[in-house]
C-alpha cells in the first residue's frame, strides 16, 4: 500500500540576532498517496519551514509527523528551493553523484538514468556543465537528481521559481506523470495557476493554515463574488491600466485584474455586483459586468485579505515617488538597439536584435531561460559590451559613456544585491549616495521612500534575513532613490507571492503614468499583459514584438492568453527551424 504523510499541530520558532520569529503556529495537514498537494501562501508564511520539517532537516518544537500506509519506512525525497547542483560538474556527473549518495544499485542504474533522461529531456546535455544550463534545465536536473531513486514521498520547495513558462509546464507534467506510481507529492509554490491544478491545496499564512481542501472546495469562498467585464476592442494598455486602477478604487472590490481584453473583479460580498455605474471614471461607467467562475487566485486573495481584516486592494493607494520622471514623457525613443549581437566564443547568445522603447512605456523583454534575454538586458545596462551593433539608452552607450550617464537609470538586479549584514538604512544610504544624493536631500528621499514603500518597521534591521517581498520592495525603492528616468528591472517578481506582485505592478503602473520608462524582464506572462509593448527573444533571436494583443494575434488564436501565445510562438519557431534543417 502506498505511503502518505500526516502532520499535526506543528510549531517551530527561530531566534535570529535581531528578533525571535515563530514560523509555524500549529499547522496540521496530510499528504495523500497518489496526489499532488499544493502548499501556497505569501512570503514568510512558513512554507519552507514546513517542507524542511517534513524532510527532517529541522526538529519541530512541538507537534507530530507520522506515516500512513505501507509497512516499512517510506523513502522521502526532498528538493530544496535552491537545489545545490555542483556547477563545475557536468549533468551526467551530478546525476551519478546523487545516484551514488542515495545508494542506487549499479545494475539498475543505466535503466534508471535512461528513464530520467527521457523524462527530463536532458539526454543531449550529459556532458554540459551544470553551471552552463538555463534556470529551467537546472531545475529539471535537480528534480532528476532528487528522483534518482524512486521515492514514496516527494517534497518540492518552490520548484518553479525562476523557471520560464515552457519549462514550468514541463516540470509540472514530469511530476504529474509520477502520480500513477502512487507517490505522494507536496508542491510548494507561489504560482496560483499551479496550485489550481493540484489535487489538494493547503493555504498557509503567517504560520497558520487558513484553509485546505481541493481547489474547487476552496473556491466556494468566492462563489458569486467573481465578475468580469469585456473591454472595448481598441483599448490601449494605458487605458486598461486606468480602468484597473479605477475599478480597484470602487467600493467593495477586493481585487481587479486585467486579463487580455477582460477586466476581472472580485468582490467582498456574495452576489453584489461592482458598482461601476457610479464611478467617477467615465470609461469604467460604460462597462457591463457579468458573473464568472471564480479562479483559485480569487480565493487566495479574498482569503488572505479577509484574514487580515483589510479588504482594500493593495493597489488602491499607491503614489509615484519618482519626482522627476514626468519631464521627458514625450514619446520619443529612449532605448534603442540596432543589430545588437553578442557572441561568447562560437556561441551567439544574442543575434542581431533591434527594438526601441519610447519614453514612459513599460516594455517587456520576454523569453525562456537561456534564450538571450539576460544577455540583452546586460548589454543595455552597460554590464556587457556588445560584440556587434549598438545599444543606446537615453542617447548614451552605457558601456562606454561617462559615469553620469548611468545616473539616468535605475537598476534592480534579479538577485537581491545588497549586503545582507548591513541594515536597510545603511544599504539605502549607499544606494542614494553613489548617485549623488547628499545631506538633507538624501535624508528626505530616504524618509519619503520609507513612507511610500512602508519600510519603517524594517529600516534598522539587517536586510539579509527579511522576507523576500520586503527585500524586493527595498530594492525597488533603492533603484528609485535618485529619480531615474529609465528603470531596468531584471525578473523583479521571480519567487514573489501574488499579492506582493500586484502591489509591485501597481507601483510600476503609477511610475509609467508619470513618465518613467520601464524595461522589465519577466517569466510571468500574465504580468506581460501590463506591458505596453514587448519583445520575445528565443535562441538569441527576436521572434516577436508588439503590444500584448499583437503578440497574441501572432501566436495564432486571439482568444488565447499571453502564456499560450508565448508557448505557441516558441513551438512554431522550433518547428520552422527544425524543418529548415531537415530540408
Amino acid at each position: 500500500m502506498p505511503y502518505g504523510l500526516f502532520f499535526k499541530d506543528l510549531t517551530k520558532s527561530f531566534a535570529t540576532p535581531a528578533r525571535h520569529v515563530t514560523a509555524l503556529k500549529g499547522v496540521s495537514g496530510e499528504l495523500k498517496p497518489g496526489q499532488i498537494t499544493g502548499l501556497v501562501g505569501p512570503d514568510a508564511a512558513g512554507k519552507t519551514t514546513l517542507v524542511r520539517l517534513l524532510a527532517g532537516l529541522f526538529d519541530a518544537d512541538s507537534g507530530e509527523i507520522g506515516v500512513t500506509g505501507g509497512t516499512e519506512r517510506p523513502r522521502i525525497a526532498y528538493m530544496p528551493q535552491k537545489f545545490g547542483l555542483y556547477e563545475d560538474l557536468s549533468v551526467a556527473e551530478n546525476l551519478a553523484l546523487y545516484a551514488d549518495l542515495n545508494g542506487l544499485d549499479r545494475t539498475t542504474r543505466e535503466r534508471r538514468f535512461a528513464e530520467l533522461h527521457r523524462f527530463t529531456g536532458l539526454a543531449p546535455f550529459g556532458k554540459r556543465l551544470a553551471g552552463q544550463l538555463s534556470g529551467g534545465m537546472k531545475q529539471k536536473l535537480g528534480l532528476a537528481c532528487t528522483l534518482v531513486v524512486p521515492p514514496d514521498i516527494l517534497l518540492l520547495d518552490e520548484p518553479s521559481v525562476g523557471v520560464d513558462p515552457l519549462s514550468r509546464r514541463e516540470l509540472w507534467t514530469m511530476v504529474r506523470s509520477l502520480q500513477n506510481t502512487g507517490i505522494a507529492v507536496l508542491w510548494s509554490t507561489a504560482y496560483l495557476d499551479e496550485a489550481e491544478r493540484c489535487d489538494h491545496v493547503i493555504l498557509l499564512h503567517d504560520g497558520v493554515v487558513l484553509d485546505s481542501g481541493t481547489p474547487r472546495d476552496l473556491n466556494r469562498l468566492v462563489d458569486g463574488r467573481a465578475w468580469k467585464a469585456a473591454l472595448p476592442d481598441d483599448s490601449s494598455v494605458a487605458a486598461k491600466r486606468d480602468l484597473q486602477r479605477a475599478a480597484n478604487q470602487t467600493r467593495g472590490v477586493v481585487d481587479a485584474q486585467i486579463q487580455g481584453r477582460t477586466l476581472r473583479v472580485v468582490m467582498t460580498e456574495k452576489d453584489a455586483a461592482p458598482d461601476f455605474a457610479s464611478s467617477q471614471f467615465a470609461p469604467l461607467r460604460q462597462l457591463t459586468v457579468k458573473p464568472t467562475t471564480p479562479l483559485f487566485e480569487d480565493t487566495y486573495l479574498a482569503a488572505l485579505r479577509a484574514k487580515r481584516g483589510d479588504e482594500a486592494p493593495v493597489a488602491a493607494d499607491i503614489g509615484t515617488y519618482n519626482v522627476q520622471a514626468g519631464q521627458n514623457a514625450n514619446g520619443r525613443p529612449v532605448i534603442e538597439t540596432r543589430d545588437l549581437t553578442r557572441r561568447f566564443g562560437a556561441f551567439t547568445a544574442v543575434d542581431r536584435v533591434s527594438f526601441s522603447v519610447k519614453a514612459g512605456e513599460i516594455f517587456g523583454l520576454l523569453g525562456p531561460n537561456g534564450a538571450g534575454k539576460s544577455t540583452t538586458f546586460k548589454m543595455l545596462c552597460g554590464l556587457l559590451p556588445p560584440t556587434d551593433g549598438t545599444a543606446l539608452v537615453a542617447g548614451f552607450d552605457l558601456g562606454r559613456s561617462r559615469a553620469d550617464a548611468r545616473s539616468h537609470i535605475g537598476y534592480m538586479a534579479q538577485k537581491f544585491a545588497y549586503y545582507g549584514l548591513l541594515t536597510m538604512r545603511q544599504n539605502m544610504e549607499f544606494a542614494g549616495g553613489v548617485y549623488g544624493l547628499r545631506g538633507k536631500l538624501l535624508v528626505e528621499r530616504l524618509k519619503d521612500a520609507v513612507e511610500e514603500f512602508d519600510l519603517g518597521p524594517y529600516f534598522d534591521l539587517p536586510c539579509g534575513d527579511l522576507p523576500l517581498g520586503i527585500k524586493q520592495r527595498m530594492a525597488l525603492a533603492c533603484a528609485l532613490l535618485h529619480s531615474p528616468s529609465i528603470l531596468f528591472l531584471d525578473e523583479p517578481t521571480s519567487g514573489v507571492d501574488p499579492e506582493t506582485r500586484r502591489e509591485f505592478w501597481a507601483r510600476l503602473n503609477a511610475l509609467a503614468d508619470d513618465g518613467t520608462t520601464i524595461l522589465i524582464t519577466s517569466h510571468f506572462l500574465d504580468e506581460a499583459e501590463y506591458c505596453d509593448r514587448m519583445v520575445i527573444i528565443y535562441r538569441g533571436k527576436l521572434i516577436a514584438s508588439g503590444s500584448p494583443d499583437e503578440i497574441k494575434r501572432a501566436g495564432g488564436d486571439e482568444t488565447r492568453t499571453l502564456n499560450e501565445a508565448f508557448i505557441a510562438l516558441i513551438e512554431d519557431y522550433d518547428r520552422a527551424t527544425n524543418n529548415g534543417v531537415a530540408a
Partner: protein
Amino acid sequence: MTRAPHRIGTEGQGFNRQRLAGFIRKEYLQILRDPSSIIVAVVLPLLMLFLFGYGVSLDAKHLKLATVLETDAPEARDFEASLRATLYVDPVRMANRAVATDALREGTIRGIMVLGSDFGPKIAVGQAAPIQILVNGTDANTARIMGGYAQGAWATWLLQREYANPGSQITPLVVEHRVWFNSGLDSHKSIVPGLMAVIMTLIGALLTALVIAREWERGTMEALLTTQLTKAELLIGKLVPYYILGMTGMAVSVTVGLTVFDVGFRGSFIMLFVTSSAFMLVVLGLGLMFSTLTRNQFAAAILAITATMMPAILLSGFIFDTRSMAPAVQVFTYIVPARYFVEALKTLFLAGNIWSILIPNTLALLAMAGLFLTITAVKTRRRLE
C-alpha cells in the same frame, strides 16, 4: 512528542563504499575543474622550496665591517689582515670615524671596528680597551653574530700572537668539535626539512579551509543533507582527495630536497610516509575545522592564513629554536602542529630512525588530528539551523 517517521539522510548507516566513492569522485572532479588546488599542491611547494632554499640563509657570511685605523702600528695592520682571512667578515677600510658612522647609519655596513691611536702601546703592555666595535643593533640577531665574530677573531689573533711569543705561559685547550647529523652546519640541511613541514601546513590548510564553507555558501550542503551521505562519509570524502594531493606535494618537496638541495636522508621512507600522513591529517583537519566553524569563505580564508602561516614559520622551530623561547611561548608552541613535524622531519633527514623522537611526535600529531577532526565532526550538522 514528535514521532518523526524517518529522517532524511540519516537513513544511511555506517559506511557505504558506493556513497563514499561517489563523493570522492565528485571532489576529485571539482579539483580537476579548478586547477587552483593543483597549483597549491604542486607549484606552491616548488616555489617555496626555491625561495626559502635560496632566499633564506641563516649563516651570516661576508658581513661588511668598516675598519678605522687611527694608528699606524704594525700590530693594527696585522690584526686587520687576520680579519680578511675569515669567511664571516669583509673588512672595508674607512678613513675616519665620521665616514664610518655615516655608512653605519645608512646601513651600507653592519659594524665598525676602531683601532685607536694608542693601539700599539697599549697592546704591548696588555691594557684594556684598545679596540672599539660598533654594531648596528637594529637587527639584533645579525648584530650578535657580528659581535661574536669580531670577538672570536680578536681572541684568535691574541692567542696566536702569544704562542708566537716564546715566553708565553698559556696552555691552550684543544677542543675537539664533533657536530653530529650536520657536520658542515649547513643551514640548508636544517632548513629544508623544516621547510617541508611549513609547506605542508600551508597546503593542507589552504586546500581544505574553504571546501565546506563553500558547500554552505553555494547551497549544495542542503542538497547533500537530503541524501543518505553520513557525516563520516562526508568528512572522509573531503579528506581523501586532499590527502592525496597534499602527499603529492610532499613527494615533490622531498624529491626536490634530496636532488636539488642535497639534504640527504637517513631515516626510513616508511616512517617518513607514516609521519607525513599523520601530519597531513592534522592540517587537513584544521582546514576543515575552520571551514565548518565559520561556514563563511571570507572568514575561513582569513583565519587559515593568519592562523597557520606565521605560526608555522615562527613557532615551529623551523628557523627559531623553540628551546630558546620564553617559557610561556614554549608552552604555546606545543599547540602548533608543525612543531612536531619539524622535529620528526629533521630527525628523519639528518639523524635517522630515532624512535624515541619519531614515535612521540607522530603520536602527538595523531592526537591533534583526532582532536581537530572530532571538533569538525561534532560541529558538522546533518541538520540545518
